[in-house]
């Protein structure tokens, strides 16, 4: 998955949600309102080792 495609997936996801990518991070697998829901949805789709990313409420430049 290209960085641009990954960014697009994250930008289009529901705010304050979790995205599950495949174990190799090459494809989008599932989405959930919580970490647990995203994991469960990923497992239902056959991915037992997803990589989870949290989608923020707003896409803003962050100062951490």
């Amino acid at each position, binding site marked *: 998955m290209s*960085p641009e495609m990954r960014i697009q997936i994250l930008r289009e996801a529901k705010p304050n949600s*979790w995205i599950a990518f495949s174990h190799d*991070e090459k494809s989008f697998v599932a989405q959930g309102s*919580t*970490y*647990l829901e995203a*994991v469960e949805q990923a497992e239902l789709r056959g991915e037992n*080792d*997803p*990589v*989870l*990313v*949290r989608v*923020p*409420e707003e896409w803003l430049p*962050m*100062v*951490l």
Partner: protein
Amino acid sequence: MLTVSLVIGHATTRRFEAVVDSGSVSCLFHADIGKAHGLKLDSGPKGPLGGVIGGASGEVYYHQVKLAVPGSLISIVAGFSEQLSVAAILGRHGFFEHYVITFDPQNNPPGLNLERFHRA
């Protein structure tokens, strides 16, 4: 960004993306991760959570967990917060104190080189 996981009690979380941030005192994790693995958030010591933008604040609860970074498992005191906008932040206590970290901007996206060191 670095993909890591946690060991909470006897449970190992799924891997998630963490922000590598030397500006953070501690390692912080979204509360969802802890709760999904049986952590009772408010059973741990509570602390404030703030940032460089004045007015924004939150609460964090600290718990002893293990941080799994590729190749290493490190016991840390981690903060868990409902207010974290990202899955995790790897800060000075628990992460930067164990690694020499080099930011490599040559690739897209930019990468990190980690070198673990052990204090005598």
